[in-house]
């Protein structure tokens, strides 16, 4: 652990919103109603506002914490939240708990404590351009295979790759390429049926799920988002359709 870096990360995250929301949370627990963790397993640790505790404690201690504390922080920030933001809908103050959870995750990232599964997905995303480590060749092959299948049903169907000047750049969740190509089939069918002027990209950036954002790793998040933007700009599209 490097307390200097931790304190630096905390200072970097302590902006207007963090201060605002950490200070006005009334700890009323109304957010519990919106949380699927709490609804399926109503433990106190599953109340969204509970996820603010490690951050509040860290601010109170001015960053002077130990390894066990950080482990609790990691378990809370990564283990009890999918950052879906439903809790914000139920909060009378409209506090973005997901924003605060992401700030908390950034503190874990600053200590190299990103959970293993996320860390390897993130390494994949940075290296291969998608978090499942699909190679460009595999990606193109999967698209061509599904297009072929689709053409049996819809002979005029197309799936242009790197078509300059198309209206829309379609991006994917890599899960739909690797595990559920049937989903890819359905997307292509839908866009063709709708007469959408779309293109795919062969560049890194075809995966628009930003695992860096989810992990709380800001530089990685910026890199991954930048690739999607660059892919869109290079092709001159007007709209980028992001994945679920």
């Amino acid at each position, binding site marked *: 652990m490097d307390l200097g870096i931790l304190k630096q990360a905390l200072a970097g995250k302590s*902006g*207007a*919103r963090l*201060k*605002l*929301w950490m*200070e*006005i*949370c*009334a*700890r*009323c*627990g*109304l957010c*519990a*109603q*919106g949380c699927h963790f*709490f609804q399926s397993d*109503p*433990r*106190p*640790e*599953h*109340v969204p*506002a*509970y996820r603010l505790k490690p951050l509040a404690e860290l601010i109170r201690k001015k960053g002077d914490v130990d390894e066990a504390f950080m482990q609790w922080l990691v378990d809370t920030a990564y283990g009890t939240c999918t950052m879906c933001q439903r809790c*914000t*809908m*139920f*909060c*009378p*103050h*409209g*506090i*973005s708990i997901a924003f605060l959870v992401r700030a908390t995750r950034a503190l874990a990232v600053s200590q190299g404590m990103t959970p293993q599964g996320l860390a390897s997905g993130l390494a994949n995303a940075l290296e291969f351009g998608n978090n499942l480590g699909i190679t460009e060749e595999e990606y193109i092959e999967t698209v061509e295979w599904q297009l072929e299948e689709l053409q049996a049903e819809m002979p005029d169907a197309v799936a242009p790759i790197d078509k300059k000047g198309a209206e829309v750049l379609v991006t994917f969740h890599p899960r739909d390429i690797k595990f559920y190509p049937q989903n890819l089939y359905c997307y292509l069918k839908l866009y063709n049926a709708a007469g959408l002027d779309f293109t795919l990209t062969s560049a890194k950036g075809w995966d628009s799920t930003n695992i860096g954002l989810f992990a709380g790793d800001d530089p990685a998040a910026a890199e991954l988002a930048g690739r999607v933007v660059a892919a869109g700009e290079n092709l001159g599209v007007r709209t980028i359709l992001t994945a679920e």
Partner: protein
Amino acid sequence: MTLLSLYDFAAGPLFAFSFSVFALGSGWRVLRFVLLARAADPAALKGFRPSWALKSILRWLVPANITARENALMTAAGFSFHLALLGVALFFSAHVVLVDLAWDVSWPTLPDEAADWLTYLFLASAAFLAWRRLSLPHVRALTTASDWLVLALTAAPMLTGLIAYRQWGDYDLFITLHVLSGNLMLLAVPFTKLSHAVLFFVSRAVTGSDFGKRNVGAW
């Protein structure tokens, strides 16, 4: 210092001080948010969507939101608590008379009987909030000492005011405690979660604007 001179001090110079701290401190909390947000990202304010911010504030100022539908009891308690507190503080006849005597400005008042009932309503809501903190495990787990302190700071002027008005105890004592606790509550606003008195509007505006950008409704 006798009780009555303490009262005179608390209702005079101390109140002027507390009210100034309350007003300036609350204003500073809002200004600080804007300054910090602008320092972090000068473009952040440009993306602000005022109409969505306003919609979001309105949906929670009148109970037209998902929590009001799904948690009606807590919403009723919350609204009773806040409306009764503001109603009695601003429109109880004795309060308005004091302002009139001091600054020669006046406004309509509540009938004393209504103020009485509002106070009972407030105390019942406060009791409900306290009960909720104690009895719901997930709320108890969130609760900190400052939550109890802030609830006590808010309830104290209402309770002592009622006791003084009804003359249930030593009037001089309770009216002095009433004014002192009122001062304390005002002083606490900028420095505790009571700052939501003003920051509620800032927070809802921020979230309303964010959600508006995504076209997902004015939560």
